């Protein structure tokens, strides 16, 4: 159980990040690269900055969020100002971030004493467990707070309303006077803040050093989670737990048998295909409705 919750924490961040852009009908997969890159950048602070406990973690998380926001705003500008497809540019950006992050790693961060990974983070930079006997960490509380904030932002503020309007019908939103450029920028920046934060939290809480050598895959998981939750931030918590459950289960299966964990990726893809299929079970639904009418 503890395993599932700790695995769900980064997924909540990526799911939230994706749901914000999906709300605006923007298909941005940049969360993938940002998780990786913000973790690489905050490693510098986490290893070398001589800050006291508390302030150190706060600085790291803020820095991670800023890194994410800056990167996402680049993709946002390309989309909003020039109309470049955010899907293609964010996927290309992921590869660029992977290259630059790996460069930082091999050039500055790699620990010659360790078999792989960077120098270990300073003690003052780490999150410790908050539930004895598990690795559940403070990141859970942060994730829940962020979820609440995103929910309020999407459903209770003017900007959130504008994002949803643009997502439902961009032309209509434009004619009714919504500044679409602004909305695209805001949703990208918010999404970047969340995914950058997620990368920072995950690395100081779970890894305690920078040890990713390829993209961690949270971005694509986030896409599935956001869709399962119908882009509702509160739903993201539950769908993150569900995906974390699949993941943890697959790890156990892989350990006990010869079935590789990639089985989960296959399952997830099929779930995406089926969920996004509007006509799936359509005839069944139709019959159900007709029967309802017949009974009246």
């Amino acid at each position, binding site marked *: 159980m503890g395993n599932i919750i700790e695995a769900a924490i980064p997924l909540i961040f990526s799911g939230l990040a994706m749901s914000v852009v999906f709300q605006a009908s923007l*298909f941005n*997969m940049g969360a993938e690269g940002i998780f990786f890159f913000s973790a690489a950048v905050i490693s510098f602070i986490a290893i070398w900055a001589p800050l006291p406990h508390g302030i150190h973690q706060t600085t790291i998380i803020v820095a991670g969020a800023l890194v994410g926001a800056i990167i996402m705003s680049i993709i946002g500008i*390309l989309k909003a100002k*020039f*109309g*470049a*497809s955010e*899907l*293609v*540019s964010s*996927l*290309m*950006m992921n*590869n*660029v971030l*992977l*290259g*630059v992050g*790996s*460069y930082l*790693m*091999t*050039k500055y961060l790699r620990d010659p004493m360790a078999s792989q990974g960077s120098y270990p983070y300073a003690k003052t930079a780490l999150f410790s467990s908050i539930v004895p006997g598990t690795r559940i960490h403070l990141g859970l509380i942060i994730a829940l707070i962020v979820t609440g904030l995103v929910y309020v932002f999407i459903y209770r503020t003017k900007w959130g309303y504008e994002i949803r309007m643009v997502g439902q019908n961009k032309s209509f939103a434009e004619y009714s006077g919504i500044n679409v450029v602004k909305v695209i920028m805001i949703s990208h920046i918010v999404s970047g803040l969340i995914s950058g934060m997620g990368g920072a939290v995950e690395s100081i809480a779970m890894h305690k050093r920078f040890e990713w050598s390829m993209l961690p895959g949270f971005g*694509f998981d986030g*896409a599935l989670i956001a*869709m399962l939750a119908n882009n509702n931030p509160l739903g993201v918590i539950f769908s993150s737990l569900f995906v974390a459950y699949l993941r943890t289960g697959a790890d156990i299966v892989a350990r006990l048998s010869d079935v*590789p964990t*990639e*089985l*989960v*990726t*296959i399952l*997830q*893809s*099929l779930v*995406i*295909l089926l969920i*996004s*299929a*509007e*006509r*799936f079970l359509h005839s069944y639904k139709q019959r159900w409705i007709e029967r309802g009418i017949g009974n009246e």
Partner: protein
Amino acid sequence: MSKFLDIILSTQFFYSIFRVTTPILFASMGAVVANTAGVPNIGIEGIMLIAAFTGVFVSAATQSAAIGLLGAALSGILLAGLLAFFTLYYRTNPILGGIAINSLASGGTIFLLYLFTGDKGSATSVASKVVSEINILIIRDIPVIGEIISGHNILTYLSLLSVVFVYVLIKKTPLGHHLRAVGESKNAAESVGINVNRVKLIALLISGLLAGLGGAFMSMGYVSTFSRDMVSGRGWIAIAAEAMGKTNPIATAVTSLLFGASDAISNAAAAVGWASDLVRTIPYIATIIGLLIFSARELKKARL
């Protein structure tokens, strides 16, 4: 620096441009066919990956490069068919469907790779066949040009022919007219009795075939084995090339060649020992810049 210049001014460098452009060119032609009919094929990246995988294992099992190639092409068609089934008949959002196909291919190939070889990284232990290279008579004896144009993989020549094929298909054949009609206006096409879904299905299947050949080249020509996620964004670069070429086969071929050149430059820079992590990003940065320039120009035109 001078060593770098030596490399990029050599005939081998220009030879290598054609080599690295091959997969992008195939895939971008696939994107052209699909987009002509108005169905974006976002799954190209995944189709290439599955085809690369199938090529290696079928050629190893049959000890025949030709059958391996055929298998790769078929697997591309099949996966495109799956995407078509969901987007056309189940009305899956084509972008989400494409994303799902890509992650299905990524996870699925690693899964099967592990089952077949016990290794999650690559299939170096599998004795697969490669498609051979051919010299062209007469041209190969011309200095400079012969070194650049002759001696390529059969698939490289095939990729150049695919541009002609797609051009003729779209502009000169009845099927091409149907594709364009459906892409231009679905309702108008339907009103004159064209079966819109069938035309879109055919477009996606052809697109899958072309992307599949591009994937086959990755594992049966570019290198001689399969490794995880080896397509590494080439499908997306092809989609960007198609967008910049405005769905015109010739213009798309030119932009593909540009992206291929940036890929070759990044290989050359890595060969002289520049930070390989950084120079590896060159093709992707080139794609973003290319996309930016193209989109900005389009937007300006739209505002006039």
